[in-house]
């Protein structure tokens, strides 16, 4: 009873976080630089690594946006759980479907 109310209170009173403008500017600059990097790298032949690099850079950019522009870094745990669920489920969709495609023509 006692701790449950405390718990509820903790859940509901996450302090609002104000991110300084400097952080935003820094993130924005990083994103622009990464865009330039991904653009330039695309013209270099890295073999199969091209797509890996492109995806990794995109993931880094998306993570920066989520954490700082969208304040997920300062959000309650519950919000981070929601984000995690979205990502995990998308990978379930991709992963299990590709599990079919990638093994469909294996010799058996």
């Amino acid at each position: 009873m006692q701790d449950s109310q405390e718990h509820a209170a903790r859940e509901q009173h996450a302090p609002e976080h104000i991110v300084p403008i400097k952080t935003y500017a820094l993130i924005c600059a990083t994103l622009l630089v990464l865009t330039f990097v991904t653009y330039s790298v695309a013209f270099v032949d890295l073999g199969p690594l091209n797509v890996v690099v492109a995806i990794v850079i995109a993931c880094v950019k998306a993570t920066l946006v989520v954490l700082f522009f969208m304040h997920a870094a300062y959000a309650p745990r519950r919000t981070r759980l929601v984000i995690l669920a979205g990502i995990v489920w998308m990978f379930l969709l991709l992963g299990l479907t590709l599990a079919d495609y990638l093994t469909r023509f294996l010799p058996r």
Partner: protein
Amino acid sequence: MSAITANPSPASSPPHRPHENYLNANYGIRSWLFTTDHKRIALLYLFSVTIYFAMGGFFAMLIRLQLLTPEGFLVGPDTYDRLFTMHGVMMIFFFLIPSIPAVLGNFLIPLMIGAKDLAFPKLNLLSWYIFNIGAIFTIYSIVTGGVDTGWTFYTPYSSIYSNSQVSAAVIGIFITGFSSILTGLNFIVTIHTMRAPGMTWWRLPIFVWSHYATSIIFILGTPVLAITLVMVAAERLLHVGVFDPRLGGDPLLFQHLFWFYSHPAVYIMILPAMGVTTEIIATFARKNLYGYKAVAIASLGIAAIGFLVWAHHMFVAGISIYAAMVFSLLSYLVAIPSAVKVFNWTATLYRGSVSWQTPMLYALGFIGLFVMGGMTGLFLASIGADVHVHDTYFVIAHFHYIMVGGAVMGYLGGLHYWWPKITGRMYPEMLSRAAAIVLFVGFNLTFFPQFILGYLGMPRRYATYPPEFQVLNVFSTAGASILGLGYLLPICYFIWSMRYGPIASSNPWPATGLEWQTSSPPPTENFETTPVVTWEPYDFEHRPDLGLPKPERARPAPLEAPGLEAGD
């Protein structure tokens, strides 16, 4: 114990001047169409899904009539294809998926957690409008010629070859999907943030847990169906082909995307019914639910594992044999949380005080039919057996045991159980028990023969069939007519009871949930004062406010032979 003062007790409410409640708070059609009260929206949903259920049921009766004779009793194959498609579309997207969540869930979740409303009342109303707009599109497709693709809309038939109103139906389902998403979103947020003081996660009724699990499927599955239908519509209307095999498109990709939603959608239908069953069993056994935490976690487990098994609909579709084995293995895992639930429900009866009132009949019927539906699911999960019975009447029988025997029984049981809360009146007890038994008998007569038909090899979606299948089909049609009559009974006496039923007290059974702590029907704001929860879920022993005698420790009753005297 309970911090809230119970609202008018049965004795104190005068039968002729009912207290102010959500039904009589204001009048007029506008007060309903623009309401943001979750209870009124639930009734709007009740009204809508009943109509769509009647439509789907009508198509079902025509289907069964057609199959009375091998060469087709009623219509040609063109019409028959439209009948089973529209039966599936109406029943799945416009009845089964919204039925329990949008009617009972909408009505009860805020009451059960002690909130004044859902988190987003306007979105809730919006979802009802979206739902009906989607239905209008779909009904338009019926009126203008119907759809003949089956509710599964397999490409390339749906996207290229069918000459029916596929686009309108697909757009209708796409739109309706957003109402599911909004409902699921509303439930998740409400359950997270709107719980009354003291209503911890481990004090939530299982009904709320199962709706939480359902909502996860709503919000993570439905969008995938939406984008898949967009792709089908784009291919059909704009010839922007993604699945078109003539361009090298893969028809199996559609199936993957479709079943990613549509398999979990089965759990959208069954999970809420499991929640209803749990509530009913605890109340009518007057006993704490056995293994509360296990049952709660099993709900989430079913929702999560339910997302990992979709390709068992594709074992003979040409997927990789390795993938087939992985999906078969994962499919078997669903059996475990399901078994946990069934065993815990059964164990709850032990040392209970079991009353065979109507909701309990539905709940016990639900367990029996769900066990049969679930066990036959094992046949389909195992690749070796599925190859033979896939796309036959075995599958039809299996999923009707889950959807009609499970979800519809749960829905009707829930409607009976909460009817006094919803309307403030009781339904006729004897008639409703008779209806429950009629439904149970009719259901089994309709669908059990289809298991045999399926193993004999009768494929589904056949307008005509070889003559040796006729006898079983006649049984099935006979059962369907009983089932159809059975459904008319509740509709009639529910309407009757709204006006003439005996006045119900605020807690007629009595039950332990918060929803029974307010008056029947509840006031617009649900509770006079915000309730504070101080009791564990389904605890009858420490609840003097329920007015039950103390359970006796020494039980005098001698062990008697297990009887088969009663009902079903």
